[in-house]
């Protein structure tokens, strides 16, 4: 035994005698993880979270969350002797008078944007492949929770420097709180310690941003990962892959090296962005003053869709018995997002009700094989994209020679007309792709080689797919529609009534697929092959 082996043995013994760790370590060091690039999107989010914790902690050593007034005495000349809050001044101090301060600020903010983008990309992957189905519905809900909290955390984070752009965002958030019926004015005065902007809002959101929300994040992320660990990761269908196994690489050493390496890569790319691309140049925005505003004021991208919704809202307020209800704020600011996020969170249950599918699933769907779900997803993306575009309508107008009025009207009408259109088009495309798969399995791949037959006809030679590929294209289970039972043999009506009818109709739409080729069809073809 070498010296190194002896020492390692002693350490392992020491730990095991106190924790019994060998038992669960032996199992988990060999845990198998399927390998696909689309499974790394969640990892990007996770690593970005770690980067946020590290860079954020650095920033807290210099940031002063106070709104008391100071006169700027730092090195950025264009703001010399200007009155501003201590929060803004300390952010300027970090940016210009702390070596590496601006880099860390930028790494922190880029990491936040990447965090949200990765969450959205990961959500799309999980949605389009059906990874949210039983037994993973609860993990999906955790994910939606992380998405929602991420939006809030990011908003609070970039509001901390108290600059003109983020202060405007706070003004708008304040208006949303204030517009709430009955309790709005009380809540806003409690939140801001009085009239807007007050002096306590920054210190309060600071604690939410650095303590409360990160704590909740850690808990939710831990639960999210533990579920993935225990339930084992899903995998794409393919030869050798079944609902009862996981095919991939063991945690040690391959997965550790790849995932660990990927952490360094994500950190490195984020640092690279922080080094070469300026983000949130608060010294140009100036300190927040409620009487000032900049043209082209937008929130960060993950809130852009909310801004777009508010911009396109019809100007409706109702006045009843001496009270005002601002529908033009409540509907786009709270009601629509509330419906969207609740719908998203409950989607696994909605889908299992629609399809009648109550089974456990560990093999992922190819999006084309579930046209209804894929079309629904594209429809939602279209909605978000249009609202996002409207959120940036003034920047788009100046850069593409359009008018904000045109873009606004395009968005108002488009947001109602385009999503259903996207649904129909996507579903048709999925069905066409299914047809193509069927052709591939039955007739093979085009090779581009032409052959002239003796009687003069030209044909293109087709290459038969390998057995593995044929299997991949036909492994999926095609759903059956739920048979609608309106009354039983005694003539008693179905107690579920209209709900059963709707369910049956939806499941029929869901079962609309191009029949996949069976082994018998293949054999018939081969025997009569040209």
């Amino acid at each position, binding site marked *: 035994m070498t010296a190194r082996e002896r020492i390692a043995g002693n350490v392992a013994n020491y730990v095991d005698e106190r924790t019994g760790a060998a038992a669960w370590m032996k199992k988990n060091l060999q845990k198998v993880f399927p390998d696909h690039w689309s499974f790394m999107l969640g990892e990007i989010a996770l690593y970005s979270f770690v980067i946020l914790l590290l860079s954020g902690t650095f920033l807290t050593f210099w940031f002063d969350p106070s709104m008391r007034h100071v006169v700027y005495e730092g090195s950025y000349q264009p703001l010399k002797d200007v009155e501003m809050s201590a929060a803004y001044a300390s952010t300027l101090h970090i940016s210009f008078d702390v070596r590496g301060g601006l880099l860390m600020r930028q790494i922190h903010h880029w990491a936040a944007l990447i965090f949200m983008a990765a969450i959205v990309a990961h959500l799309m992957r999980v949605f389009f492949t059906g990874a949210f189905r039983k037994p993973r519905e609860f993990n999906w809900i955790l994910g939606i929770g992380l998405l929602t909290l991420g939006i809030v955390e990011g908003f609070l984070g970039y509001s901390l420097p108290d600059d003109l752009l983020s202060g405007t965002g706070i003004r708008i958030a304040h208006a949303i709180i204030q517009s709430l019926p009955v309790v709005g004015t009380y809540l806003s005065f409690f939140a801001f310690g009085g009239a807007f902007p007050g002096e306590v809002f920054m210190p309060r959101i600071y604690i939410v941003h650095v303590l409360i929300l990160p704590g909740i994040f850690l808990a939710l992320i831990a639960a999210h990962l533990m579920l993935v660990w225990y339930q084992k990761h899903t995998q794409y269908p393919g030869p050798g892959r079944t609902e009862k196994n996981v095919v991939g690489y063991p945690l040690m050493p391959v997965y550790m*090296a*790849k995932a660990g390496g990927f952490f360094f890569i994500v950190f490195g790319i984020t640092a690279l962005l922080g080094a070469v691309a300026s983000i949130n140049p608060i010294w140009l925005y100036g300190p927040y003053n409620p009487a000032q505003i900049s*043209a082209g004021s937008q929130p960060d991208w993950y809130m852009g869709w909310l801004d777009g919704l508010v911009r396109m809202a019809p100007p409706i307020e109702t006045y009843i018995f001496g009270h005002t209800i601002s529908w033009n*704020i409540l509907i786009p600011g709270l009601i629509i997002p509330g419906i969207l996020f609740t719908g998203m969170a409950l989607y696994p249950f909605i889908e299992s009700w629609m399809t009648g599918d109550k089974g456990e699933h560990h093999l992922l769907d190819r999006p084309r094989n579930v046209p209804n779900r894929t079309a629904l997803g594209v429809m939602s993306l279209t909605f978000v994209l249009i609202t996002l575009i409207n959120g940036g309508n003034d920047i788009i107008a100046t850069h593409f020679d359009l008018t904000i009025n045109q873009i606004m009207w395009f968005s108002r009408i488009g947001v109602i007309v385009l999503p259903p259109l996207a649904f129909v088009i996507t579903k048709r495309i999925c069905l066409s792709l299914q047809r193509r798969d069927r052709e591939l399995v039955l007739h093979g791949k085009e090779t581009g080689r032409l052959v002239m037959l003796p009687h003069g006809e030209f044909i293109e030679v087709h290459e038969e797919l390998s057995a593995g590929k044929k299997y991949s294209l036909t492994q999926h289970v095609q759903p059956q529609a739920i048979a609608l039972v309106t009354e039983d043999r005694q003539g008693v009506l179905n107690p579920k009534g209209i709900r059963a009818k709707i369910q049956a109709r939806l499941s029929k739409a869901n079962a609309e697929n191009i029949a996949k080729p069976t082994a018998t069809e293949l054999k018939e073809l081969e025997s009569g092959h040209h």
Partner: protein
Amino acid sequence: MPNELEPLADPGLPEHIHRRADTDPIAAKRAERQVAVLFSLSAAGTLLFFYSFFFIKEDLFVFIPVIGSTNAQQLGIGLGVAFGLLFIGFGAVHWAKTLMPDQEVIAYRHTMRSAEEDRSEFVKAVKVGAEEAGLGRRPLIKRSLFAALGLAGLPAVVMLRDLGPLPGNSLNETSWKTGTRLVTDPGDRPIKASDLEVGGVAQVMPELAPGKERHLEDIAKDAVLLIRLRPSDFQLDAERLSWTHEGIIAFSKICSHMGCAVALYEQTTKHLLCPCHQSTFDVTRAAKVIFGPSARPLPQLAITADADGYLIAKQPFTEAVGPSFWERKS
């Protein structure tokens, strides 16, 4: 059409294809060297960081294509950290890809559902435990317990009462009173009617009493926009017209939608645009909303001139300024 009968059979995992480094020791050595180079590049990056941090002057700027002229120290520190991290990652991944075993491994899933006897034992344990607690048989305990728990949670909420004062009437009041002089913002200079040209705009605040300071909370309600048109441009009723002075009209600058500063004035169209959500207001018709999500016009401030010719407020605002709220009457 059901087609689960006779689906295609599973051909099993495809045959493993060996990488060059698996069979050829020279290729393996080459891969090893590549990994070492990548790790060394990381070390070089970290060295760049140290050099930039301690030896590059803080006021040195370099020109980089695409980026522009940027602070050299900041760029050096950033690139140093970035490369230091990035190449460790690239090295580790390259090592795993080329040298570590890439034979696919199969593990088996266990069903999530517990064994039947575990489930029944669990149900039994819960039932026995509940029996022993006796809540079901002792409704008095149950009711008093829930009452106590429910009440005990209330102090946590009530203690938040002192987060802020009650709004009272403050949302309906601003610093503008009868006779308050209009002064420029910034500068605090009082304004005569002749100071403002037709087509001109002035950012305005109420004059401060001597010795007083202007707080942001006041600015958030008091900010006013002063615009001069030709008197013939107005399409106002008699009362609103009396609130103008020689073609000069004053509006609250705080948007009636969500409170941003509405200061974007288009001289040609006589429209005000709020850049936050594009609410557009027609100045000639008392800031009536003609586009966008705002539901109310901007409150108009009645102005006139005092004995010296300086513009003053004729009366306070007749309605609350800023965004709407529940208690707002119209």
